């Protein structure tokens, strides 16, 4: 059985490589940065937002899915199915993708959160190396995966006590967002980089649908659909979050 398998696999690989025309490829490093006032986010350090509230972020993790580049002829090159970026774990903030065709791309596409199919897989059923693994701390029985998990506290009354919460656990299929960003990208031979930059302040203040962290109802959510205020905050956060990315 095993012999037959390896024979079949070898022949298939041989067949494929014999068939494809030689294309030049290169490496592409993806960086996932989070910024506050143009500085890299440092967990647990004090920030002052544009409404002069002090806050600290203690935990910040999120899933991006189906990251792809779009060529000038509109064909797509998928870079990765799913990443979980965690600002406590530097290794999750970069990803090297091999074998990217050397050519010009005009657009970057990605999903914020998990696709319905990805969201339906149980932590039990994925490999330990999958970002959805058993210990990701990104799964609740009733919600499925948490797309974005941000936890911190704020001092909104100037008491110097960080005793107001700042918790956004955002998930559920309806809040999955797809993002397309025009970006002229020339992949050259050798190493290339592409940076997904997230501006934290933009999540809360984008001038369209600000989230007021001094308002209890807007200072947290766990995407509970049975509680309209709680879910409204999740909707707002998911929307703002997906718009807070720039591609560099």
């Amino acid at each position, binding site marked *: 059985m095993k012999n037959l398998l390896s024979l079949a696999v070898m022949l298939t690989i041989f067949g494929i490589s014999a068939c494809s025309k030689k294309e030049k490829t290169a490496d592409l490093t993806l960086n996932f940065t989070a910024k506050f006032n143009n500085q890299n986010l440092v967990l647990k350090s004090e920030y002052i937002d544009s409404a002069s509230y002090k806050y600290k972020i203690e935990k910040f993790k999120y899933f991006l899915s189906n990251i792809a580049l779009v060529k000038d002829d509109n064909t797509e090159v998928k870079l990765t199915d799913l990443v979980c970026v965690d600002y406590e774990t530097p290794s999750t903030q970069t990803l090297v993708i091999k074998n990217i065709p050397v050519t010009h791309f005009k657009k970057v596409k990605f999903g914020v959160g998990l696709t319905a199919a990805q969201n339906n897989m149980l932590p039990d059923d994925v490999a330990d190396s999958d970002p959805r693994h058993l210990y990701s701390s990104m799964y*609740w029985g009733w919600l499925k995966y948490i797309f974005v998990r941000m936890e911190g506290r704020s001092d909104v009354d100037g008491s110097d006590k960080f005793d107001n919460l700042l918790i956004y656990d955002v998930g559920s299929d309806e809040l999955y967002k797809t993002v397309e960003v025009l970006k002229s990208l020339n992949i050259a031979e050798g190493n290339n980089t592409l940076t997904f930059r997230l501006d934290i302040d933009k999540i809360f203040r984008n001038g369209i649908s600000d989230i007021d962290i001094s308002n209890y109802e807007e200072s947290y959510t766990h995407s509970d659909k049975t509680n309209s205020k709680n879910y409204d905050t999740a909707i707002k956060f998911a929307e703002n979050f997906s718009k807070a990315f720039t591609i560099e």
Partner: protein
Amino acid sequence: MKLKIEKLLSSLVKVSLATVLLFLLGIAGCKPDKNIEPDPNSNDPDSLYVGTPYSLQRPSPSNRFRRFPDSTFTVEGIRLGRMLFWDPIVSADSTLSCGSCHKPEFAFSDEGKQFSMNLSGPTKRNTPSLQNSIWMRQLFWDGRQPSLEAASHDALLDEQHFNAAQAVSKIEKRTDYVPLFKKAFGRPGTITEDKIFRAIGMFMRTMISTNSNYDKSLRGLYTLSDAEQRGLAIFSTEKGDCFHCHTDGPYLTFTNNEFLNNALDSAATLADVKDIGLGKVTGSTDDYGKFKVPSVRNLSYTYPYMRDGRFETLEQVVNFYSDSLRYSPNISPNMKKINQGGLHLTAQEKSDLIAFLKTLDDASFVSDTAFSNPFK
């Protein structure tokens, strides 16, 4: 020509797909009693031994939670582990076994005691349950050990001034143990510290509790009463918001496996924190006062509560979360109403919440004879 290659390719793909499928089927179809493969590259003669693999069973709500991490079990290993767990031979003066403090009738906690007695006096912390520890990654209230094996070694060292080498030499003299070690780990049957803790570790991983009324309700075999249902809503919505930390999670253990500060004690600055917990392990002041989030399963058996057993009843626990939260700088953000001192639940809400917590009691777990003292 091109067409031919394509045809050839597509049939090849079919063959290989079919082969892969058949192969996978072959794996999936393996009987649970298939022997564990010996490691051909090992020089250790013991590793060529093949025990009787044991497949863990646990009632599974719906189709979740089928996978067990680190699960290489043998029937013989578990049997030996159970004996070593219950045999006082492991302690320095041969008076205490693991089971002296971790009692199955109390979900492996210590019979309502705030602190257990070790050889030199009371333990520093409350004896925790060992339930569902197969899913735990960092053990002890302060998270100082990364595996069950390391934890059992440490449990003895720390609490009983136990000397593992001494235990090995005592066990070597016991003729009844030598064949058991051979059966569990193969020839030549040498007794080592490592094997002692591996066997105990296998036994502890079988301590799985998933047959409470709540679990049964997920399987459609129990209907929560109105009070229990209301309590569940408090537990798992913003009202009480217990689920953030005591989360059902992917494996229904009712702990998120994290180390957090749940506002038990006040401290103006981190330097004022008296019992530093995780901070002692990581060396980071930011972790001062953070402790393991314990499971809230089997609470009726694991009283008193918290790392120092400060609360004797669930009423006291719920009153604490409702009305007595205390501020310190690194309190978990999930202690939401800290600026109001707590959740301020009504008497009705408190009793509903407790009614729900009690649906996590698993009577079949605490009476399971597979865990009882084999020497009795």
